[in-house]
Every structure is written in structure tokens, then in C-alpha cells.
């Protein structure tokens, strides 16, 4: 039976792990993802799941254990945040390079220095070229839904690529929310049985995994590895639709909120979408043609789909919760602007960085952005394409 419950984001992920009962869970505690690890440990201690639970001595080892376990031939998951993801960095590329379908819950948190435990997207943005699929979640419900879908996406024979499902530290990981947990058996059925590909534990058929390539093969192998993420869009779409059919909540690459006749829009990811939607409603009540696009899948980046939707607008503000020092704007902005390049009709586009280290973003800040967009739409002029929201001067 599905049930309506009050959970925070971390508990929602732990619930999904309980329902999926992965073969190996290897994770290291770090704020704000710790309670996922603790809850899974309790499930194991209480016999609710029969996963092999490994507590490695670092996140680097946690990802290494995941890699060894996934190569051995079973379903593997982990959870981390911030510095933990940064410490895994070397191994993220290896997990993707070996095409191991590991699923990781990443609770977005700022990177040091200075040390800060609150939410921003610096951690996962730093991993955006690691070869992992990245799915961002607005709230606990989405984190739960995305996490369940992630196994189907990662393990699909055409994809075989690791997936990270992310949600904002504390804002989502630690805030209670009323949400729906689906029936245990229905979730198990949706995720399905794991079928290993060239497992190490099939010792009757010994294989060599991770050999060394020189200049003669490396290039071809790197390009071959991309096939998985290139095939992912079709699978992400199919799985999102099937999830919708099965559980009533359908998912695509991004959510369009009141975009039908919108002339200006904000594009962002994750929890800030909730506040932004409120603001859109207020402005719509005043008759203003504003909308919101909440991007769900950052890797693979749905460039064409997104650009098609944006190209009919007059002005767009891309809100990033991370910076890209020295670049022409923050990561989501750079990708979006590049996606629009081939469209003869394209909107004016600006970039705001917000919420670093968990700094609040309130309806007033969204009003500020929409005012700016309206001005750009009416004048056709951008005086400054890059700025910060709620930053003290």
C-alpha cells in the first residue's frame, strides 16, 4: 500500500533504499547526508534489508568499494555531500569510465573554503564532467521518485552509466514534508531484478577489467564510453513516463510552470523552484506573463528541448547555485546560452548566482529578477548579464 507520510529528504531516500534493498551500500557519514547512512545502518541492524553495508574509512574508499562491488556484479548505492563528493572525484570518473551503474544520493552542500555545511550546488557542479548522469530534485518527493527511477536509468543496457540524484542540503534533506511513499512491492517491481554484465564473480569466465590504454586505444574507448550518456535521454524519458503511469507523477527533463503564454522566465534547479513558483503565481495574479522552468536533468543536458522552449521568450534569467570561476557565467547559464546559439530567434539571457552556502532566497529576490526581465523584455537591452542575488555589498 502506498501511504502519505511526513518525512525529510534524507528519510525519503532511506525509505527508497529500504524498498529497493540493494546488494551493497557503502557510504561514509558527512553533513548533511549522514542520516541516510545512519538510517540504512539501522535497517541492516534490524534486518529490514539484507544489503551488505560497508562503512569505509573515507568517501574515496566508499566510491572505491562501490566500484569493486558494482564490477563484482550487483546493485550498489551510496550517499554523500560536498567535500565527500569532492574526495570521490577521482573515482567518479572511474565508475563512469568502467560503465558501472552505481546510484548515488548527493545532498548538495557548499564546498570549502570557507567550510560551510549548507546547501549549494558547487559539489555536483564540480562533478558535471565526470560522466555521471545528474538528476536534481526540488523536494523530498522528487528526491524519492528520482532515486527510484535512477536505478532503471543507470542499469538500462543502453545506458550502463552511474547516476547521481541530488537535492539541497538542509532545505530538503532536513525539512519535513508531506509526501507519498509507494507500496514496497510496487517499487521493487518497478526497479526490477538486477542483471549483471561481465561480473567479476563469474570466475568461470575470468575477465580483465580496467586495463591500461596507450595512445592506440584510449581515444576510441573514451568516445565509446559516451554512448551510455548519449543513449540516456530516451531512457530517462521512458522511465519518467512509466513512473508517471505507475505512480501518477510523470517526469521529463524539466518542468514548465505557467509557461504557456509566458514572455519572460526564470530557469533554475532544485528547491528554490518552490519559492519561485509562489512568485510566479503572485505575478500571474497581477496579469504578468511570467513563467518558470525547473531543470531536472543537468547531465545529459537537454540542450535542444530546453532551447526550443526558451527560444520563444523575450528574456530569460538563469539562476545558478554555484559559480564557475573565470568562466562566462555560472554552469547552468553557460550551457543554456550555448544551447540557444543556433536559434535565430532567441531571448535575451542573464545570469544570477544565488544561495551560496545556504544563503536564503525569498519571493522578494524572485520579484527583483522578474522586474529586471520585464525591463529587458521591454527595452531589448541588457546592461549587465551577470549578478548576485541577496549578496551583501
Amino acid at each position, binding site marked *: 500500500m502506498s501511504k502519505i507520510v511526513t518525512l525529510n529528504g534524507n528519510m525519503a531516500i532511506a525509505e527508497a533504499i529500504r524498498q529497493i534493498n540493494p546488494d551493497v551500500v557503502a557510504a561514509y557519514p558527512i553533513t548533511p547526508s549522514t542520516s541516510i547512512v545512519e538510517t540504512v545502518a539501522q535497517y541492516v541492524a534490524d534486518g529490514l534489508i*539484507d544489503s551488505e553495508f560497508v562503512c569505509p*574509512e573515507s568517501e574515496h574508499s*566508499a566510491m572505491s*568499494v562501490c566500484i*569493486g562491488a558494482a*564490477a563484482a556484479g*550487483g546493485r550498489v548505492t551510496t550517499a554523500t555531500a560536498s567535500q565527500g563528493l569532492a574526495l570521490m572525484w577521482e573515482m567518479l570518473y572511474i565508475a563512469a569510465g568502467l560503465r558501472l551503474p552505481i546510484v548515488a544520493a548527493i545532498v548538495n552542500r557548499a564546498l570549502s573554503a570557507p567550510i560551510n555545511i549548507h546547501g549549494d550546488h558547487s559539489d555536483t557542479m564540480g562533478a558535471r564532467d565526470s560522466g555521471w548522469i545528474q538528476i536534481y530534485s526540488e523536494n523530498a518527493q522528487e528526491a524519492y521518485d528520482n532515486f527510484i527511477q535512477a536505478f532503471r536509468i543507470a542499469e538500462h543496457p543502453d545506458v550502463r552509466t552511474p547516476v547521481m540524484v541530488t537535492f539541497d542540503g538542509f532545505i530538503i534533506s532536513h525539512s519535513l514534508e508531506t509526501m507519498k511513499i509507494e507500496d514496497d512491492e510496487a517499487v521493487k517491481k518497478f526497479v526490477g531484478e538486477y542483471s549483471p554484465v561481465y561480473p*567479476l564473480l563469474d570466475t568461470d569466465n*575470468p575477465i580483465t577489467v580496467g586495463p591500461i590504454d596507450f595512445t592506440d586505444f584510449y581515444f576510441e574507448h573514451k568516445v565509446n564510453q559516451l554512448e551510455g550518456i548519449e543513449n540516456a535521454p530516451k531512457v530517462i524519458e521512458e522511465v519518467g513516463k512509466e513512473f508517471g503511469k505507475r505512480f501518477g507523477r510523470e517526469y521529463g527533463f524539466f518542468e514548465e510552470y505557467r509557461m504557456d503564454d509566458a514572455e519572460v522566465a526564470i530557469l533554475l534547479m532544485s528547491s528554490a523552484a518552490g519559492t519561485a513558483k509562489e512568485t510566479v503565481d503572485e505575478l500571474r495574479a497581477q496579469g504578468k506573463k511570467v513563467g518558470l522552468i525547473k531543470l531536472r536533468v543537468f547531465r545529459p543536458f537537454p540542450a535542444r528541448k530546453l532551447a526550443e522552449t526558451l527560444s520563444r521568450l523575450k528574456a530569460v534569467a538563469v539562476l545558478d547555485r554555484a559559480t564557475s570561476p573565470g568562466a562566462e557565467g555560472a554552469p547552468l547559464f553557460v550551457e543554456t546560452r550555448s544551447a540557444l546559439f543556433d536559434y535565430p530567434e532567441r531571448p535575451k539571457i542573464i545570469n544570477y548566482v544565488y544561495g551560496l552556502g545556504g544563503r536564503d532566497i525569498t519571493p522578494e529576490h524572485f520579484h527583483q529578477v522578474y522586474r529586471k526581465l520585464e525591463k529587458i523584455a521591454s527595452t531589448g537591452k541588457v546592461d549587465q548579464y551577470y549578478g548576485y542575488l541577496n549578496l551583501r555589498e
Partner: protein
Amino acid sequence: MVRLRELASMEDRLVSGHGLCLGCGIPVIMKVVLRATTDPIVIANATGCLEVCTSRFPWTSWRTTWMHSAFENAASTIAGVEAMYKALVRKGKIPKDKKIKFLAIGGDGGTYDIGFQALSGAAERGHDFVYICYDNNVYANTGGQRSAATPLGASATTSPAGSKIPGKMQKRKDLTQIMAAHGIPYVAQASPHRWMDLYNKAKKAFEVDGPAFLNVLTPCPLEWKYDESQGMRIANLAADTCVWPLYEVENGKYKINYFPKEKLPVIKWLEPQGRFRHLFKEENKWLIDEIQKSVDEDWERLQRLAKL
């Protein structure tokens, strides 16, 4: 007791055609170790000489399941494989009677230095695996940089003998003792020149339930700078000078497996190796005395531990 003829008739799991140097100790060690069990073996190999020389795509020298993921994580990679084995046996996806041995292999760089944390963690967690360190005292794969296993006084490319500093000025880390301090079921130090001792230790390591660590001295003609034909003689000198005592720690109990009939002075071990040549200059000879003193102290201490 196993006979050489039996061992020789076993199929190799590391076959020839690899690119390891003429006179390298690593394949000699691996051929003995991989014969010490008849069960299937899954290997996680740290980046290093053995890894790069045996897995050049599209070829492989391995006739057993083998994996490389990175430099510092052979222990955590094999821990993952072992964890999955346990999970799948518990879930009935692998038959209970299917025995598999889990082996991690690293050089001293991948074990004493960059992989030490992963090794310590995996040992503490009690995974059922064997870790073999082929200790050639140096980062041989990258051209001879000093590691924590490089002995006092040795010249390495990042601790070179110069006119002011005569080589590495620090003593080596005693990793075998450190692993023994983890309280794991089996820890041993071995050398390929006593192949039967190495075989017996590898066999015990595979047989114990839980972590086992083998530290094996690995002559390296390239970086120790000696004639390729002399590797086993040099390894013998390491044992006879007590620079590299052969011993084991089984469930906390120390046992010395080899007492030289006549304990030779360290100079006998230093002399044939180019990496110590500078020590024989007049101004550096004090260091030979230091090395002797350090070796004597360690040997005394080991004998005391064996008497406990």
C-alpha cells in the same frame, strides 16, 4: 608439504608475455602466490609496475579475474568485491559452496604511502581478503622516487645522494608491524628467494578467515642498480643481514621463520647495490654505521616479540 614438482605442474594464472623487466622480482612472487590456492581468485591490482606491465589493451597476462581501478584503493576495491560476494551468497544468487579468494596487490608506493589508509580501513573492517605488497622499496613504475619503504641512506630520484645530503635521511616505515598492530588474523614478511616459505605464507593467508597481509621483498634491478641475474642473491643477503627478517604474526603470535646461520653485516647487502654506492665515500661512511645500528635494534626487537 607441497613439492616443487606439484607447483610446477599447476597452471599459471599470470602468464608470460608481460612487460615486467628482466630480473624483476614481481612475477616470481606472483607465480608462487597464485599457486597457493586452487580456488578461483579475484584480484584488485593497484596502479604500479605489475598493473601496467600485465594489462596493456588489447592483451592481458591474467588467466584469473583481475581488476584495476586506481592507485590508492586496491584494498577498498577488493573490499567492494568481497562485500558483493557476501551479499549475493546471502541472497542465494551465488551458491554457498562456491569459494572465491579475494586478493589485493600493490607495490610499496600503493601500499605504504598512498594506499595505506584504504588498506588500514579494509583490515579494520575485517573483509576476508589477502593483501600482498610487493615491496621494491621505491616508486619503480614512475622511475625510482622515494617511498616510505625506501631504506635509510638509499639514493632515489626524489631523495638523491648529493654533495650535501647522502640519499634518504629517514628510516623506512615498518609496515609489517603496523599491519600486525591491526590485530588481523595473519601478517607475514617474506622474500621470493625462499619460495617455499613464501608459498606457505600465501597459503595461510588465503586460508584464514578475515584479512591477511603479506609484505614481500621484491628485488628491482632497475632501481636498486644491480646485475639482473643477481636478484635472488640480493634478496638472500637481505635475509642474512636481517635487513628483511622473514617472520609471521599469526593471531598475534610472532614467529621468526629464518635465523641466519651467521648474521652478516649490512655492508654485504649495501655493497652490490648501486643505490647505496655513495655510502662508501669516506664522508658518508658514518651512515653505514647508522644503518647497522638500526637493523640491529629492529632485529633485537623482533626477537623479543617472538619470545612473548
